[in-house]
């Protein structure tokens, strides 16, 4: 009996299973900019101010709050996860928010979530004025730590 087809099928199934697990644990999900609506205010937090930007995929959300008070920072929301973080690079974050993205598609977040719903890492991609790049940030003990930043100053 030729067992090769069975071996190949089992091997492919093993690879697919491995990739699937790998995808869940290592993949990032993209959160895009969205205009804040009244329903978002209820979902996120009731006292949300107008001084905020929302990025979401409808399951996970990042809210940038820039009211120049103690509420300022990054808020990340998921089904079983809510946490406020300080800015990952306060000078950069304030510059980015003040200047604003060149269009709604030119800035977005990517989140990496573990199986328990905890945020493991985030990436922030941006094209603002004449600068473009990405920040790669780890979440360690509920704080953000920049592990890599690529910022390119383009001539006009």
């Amino acid at each position, binding site marked *: 009996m030729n067992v090769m087809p069975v071996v190949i099928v089992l091997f492919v199934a093993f690879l697919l299973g491995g990739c699937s697990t790998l995808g869940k644990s290592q993949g990032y999900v993209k959160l895009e900019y969205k205009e804040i609506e009244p329903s978002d205010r209820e979902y996120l937090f009731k006292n949300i101010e107008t001084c905020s930007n929302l990025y979401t995929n409808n399951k996970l959300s990042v809210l940038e709050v820039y009211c120049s008070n103690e509420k300022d920072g990054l808020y990340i929301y998921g089904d079983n996860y809510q946490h406020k973080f300080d800015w990952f690079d306060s000078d950069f974050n304030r*510059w980015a928010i003040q200047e604003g993205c060149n269009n709604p598609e030119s800035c977005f977040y990517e989140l990496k979530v573990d199986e328990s719903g905890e945020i493991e890492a985030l990436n922030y991609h941006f094209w603002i*004025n*004449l*600068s473009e790049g990405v920040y790669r940030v780890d979440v360690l003990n509920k704080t953000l730590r920049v592990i890599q930043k690529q910022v390119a*100053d*383009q*001539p*006009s």
Partner: protein
Amino acid sequence: MSKPLINPVKNGRIRKPDKWGSGGFGAPRGSRKHNGLDISVAFGMDILSPVNGKVVRKAFPYAKDLSYTGVLIEGDGVHLGIVVKIFYMSPLVSVIGTNVVAGDKIGTAQALTKKYPGITNHIHLEVKKNNVIIDPKTMLPGIS
């Protein structure tokens, strides 16, 4: 309908192609397209407000290199709905937060060649009309 803009550089012309690109709206910029209009100007020359409006704040084109600056102006009156950003200029401290009339001096041109050797010195003019980026040339009659 908005009144045309004033050229922020007296007799200023659109930046011609150099090794870094050309100055027209939509000109290639790597994987992107130029979302403003570059107007050639010598270092230190006066920069004028293109609109009637308020100089809301100083602006910074780059995330990390804050030596390059500019202004954000929100139009009013005949320029209501127009928002202008101008980069590569040093704004006069006295104009930040004040109302200006189109043609008023708002600052002077910065030098670009140190950061980008071989580039034609210029300012970058970006115009939003009703929150949509437009080609500034469409509101600058006669510029070439």
